[in-house]
């Protein structure tokens, strides 16, 4: 017998980068255009509940999955190894609690950031009579065969956050995405910095699609604006490493006029590096993590925070229940992806939450708030 996916594995997405010769293979021009278009689109769905809203919905039929409750919902999680995922997972658990009547059991398996383990985990879950399977894949290409195998068992599969290279899941849920994130940050930095200045791009790690797309969009902006990107460095999300890198660049170039980041986790460390060196903090982008938002407010930074909201962790549960009720859902399910600017900054500042909490958790109304997230 075999668990092999019928379609066989597929490679990475084709690299079409018309006019962007230097782009990485992660750059898909059509997706890029679509995402930028979505930044301006209005979402449908209940107001004030962005996790239920959809941008450009394309509904799919799910009648074949209709099933009487209560359900057993299974979740194969890539990892719980950073605050973003921790906040998201707590939000997901709280969401599950709001559906106690419909969800009899919620099974969660943590792959600890290992592709190999996640493939085994998915296989394991397939033997557990799950009514729906939610997957947050660790790596796009390598998890594709396992997700395909899951689809073939007939269980409704819902993928969110990072994607897979197959359309077999019932739906793929995530916010607008990396191109949007990267573009917003880069546009801001390019506009606010002194013309012809030097930008340092700080990245977490290579190879994760949602992060790669952020950088490829940013690169496009900087190329067009003829900004001098003096360095692209990986920080591993380590604040100490970040500070050292920024410090070194300040040594080397005397001044840096803009900082672009593909994720906000180490934004505070980057800002501190300027402060500690006694240099003015240049235009910078972070994310919706509270430590950065507070610093932005307190230090009056020239900043912006594109987001990749953690409220997206609520949506897979909602989607699963809708699918099991036979209701139509959108595929892909694109969630709004708000940007925090100087104008709306105050809305997101919550002095009671811990510094590494993400403002866009959409969790204030959920059971256990705020204690669960502290």
């Amino acid at each position, binding site marked *: 017998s075999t668990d092999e996916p019928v379609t066989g594995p597929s490679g990475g997405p084709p690299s079409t980068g018309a006019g962007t010769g230097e782009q990485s293979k992660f750059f898909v021009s059509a997706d890029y255009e679509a995402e930028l278009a979505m930044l301006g689109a209005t979402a449908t769905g209940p107001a004030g509940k962005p996790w239920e809203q959809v941008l450009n919905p394309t509904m799919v039929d799910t009648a074949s999955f209709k099933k009487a409750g209560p359900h057993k919902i299974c979740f194969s999680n890539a990892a719980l190894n950073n605050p973003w995922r921790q906040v998201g997972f*707590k939000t997901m658990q709280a969401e599950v609690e709001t559906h106690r009547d419909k969800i009899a059991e919620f099974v969660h398996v943590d792959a600890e950031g290992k592709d190999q383990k996640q493939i085994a985990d998915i296989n394991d879950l397939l033997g557990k009579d799950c009514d729906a399977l939610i997957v947050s894949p660790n790596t796009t290409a390598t998890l594709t065969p396992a997700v395909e195998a899951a689809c073939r068992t007939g269980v409704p599969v819902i993928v969110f956050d990072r994607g897979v290279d197959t359309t077999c899941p019932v739906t793929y849920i995530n916010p607008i995405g990396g191109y949007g994130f990267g573009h917003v940050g880069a546009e801001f930095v390019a506009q606010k910095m002194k013309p012809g200045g030097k930008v340092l791009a700080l990245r977490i790690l290579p190879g994760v699609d949602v992060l790669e797309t952020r950088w490829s969009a940013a690169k496009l902006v900087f190329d067009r604006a003829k900004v001098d990107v003096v360095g692209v460095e990986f920080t591993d999300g380590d604040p*100490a*490493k970040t500070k050292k890198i920024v*410090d*070194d*660049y300040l040594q*080397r170039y005397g001044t840096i006029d803009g900082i672009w980041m593909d994720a906000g986790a180490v934004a*505070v460390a980057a800002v501190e590096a300027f402060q500690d060196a006694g240099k003015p903090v240049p235009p910078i982008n972070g994310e919706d993590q509270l430590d950065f938002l507070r610093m932005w407010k307190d230090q009056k930074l020239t900043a912006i925070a594109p987001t990749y909201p953690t409220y997206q962790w609520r949506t897979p549960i909602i989607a699963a229940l809708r699918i099991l009720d036979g209701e139509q859902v959108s595929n892909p399910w694109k969630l709004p992806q708000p940007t925090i600017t100087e104008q709306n900054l105050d809305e997101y500042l919550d002095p009671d939450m*811990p510094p590494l909490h993400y403002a866009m958790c959409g969790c204030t109304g959920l059971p256990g708030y705020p204690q669960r997230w502290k």
Partner: protein
Amino acid sequence: MQDTLPRRALPVRAGGPLPILAILGVLLVLVAIRQPDFLAPASLMSFLGRSAPIILLAAGQYFVIVSGEFDLSVGSLVTAEVVIAARLIDGDPDRTWPVMALVLVSAAFVGLVNGLITSWLRVPSFITTLGMLLILVGAVYLWSDGSPKGELSEQFRRFGRRAVEDVPVLGRVPYALLIVLLLAVLATVLMRSDFGRILVAVGDNPRAAELSGVRVGRTRTIAFVLSGCAAGVAAILLGGYSGVSFQAGSGLEFSAITAVVLGGVALGGGRGSVAGAMLGALTLELLFALMNFFGVSGTVRPAVQGAIILLAVAVSAARSPSR
């Protein structure tokens, strides 16, 4: 594996800090050529300050290595202490001092446990401290639900972040640098004391030491405690420098061991100086800075680092007489 024919005796005492000083000198010359401003007081001070934690960890690791053991747990100990400090202080400046004391005491305690397991249960220290690495990381994640909570106070952070301002000539002198200098002097004095000499003797030949009345297990345990303490101080400086994160100490054990070996200290014990170990750490940090000045891409740096380590260690292995 190796022939046992002793090679010709060397005029230089093996394990001394001379070779590492030579490497450091070469790197400094390269810096001076490529980025002369780096050697200006302001940037040099900041460089030394931010290098303080790894220098301390190298010193701590030195005690353990020179006594013939390994400590793989220091990186995760640093992480654990930073995370614990943040959660306990939770932004409240009044808790700074008690928590700092707790950090030091608990780090020493972890060292004590490492030492006791190694010398009483006779578990090779590689395994003891590997297990401890897993336990510490797991426990601290478990305790904090997988993401650091709370916040370090400004008072806590100043040791790793702030400086004595307006010093003549030097400008800002980071507290971290002062702390590391103080501890370096203490470490050097310690290594010249009876205890220090005994520690090296234990690493050289534990049987001979034991038959001369040395309490080998106790001596090695103290070395682990010292390594734990160094990790505690490093945690205070590193937490201060960059704030709380789960990455705070990751991989530092390997950097520290590498630094110690670069500094002329023999794995297996019995040879090398604590000054050499600390200079090894400084050299490693300078190497990173240099790679930046030469624009070596971040992703290629590990390769350059690996090549230089292999080269440096191969050269000194070829120079030193076989055991």
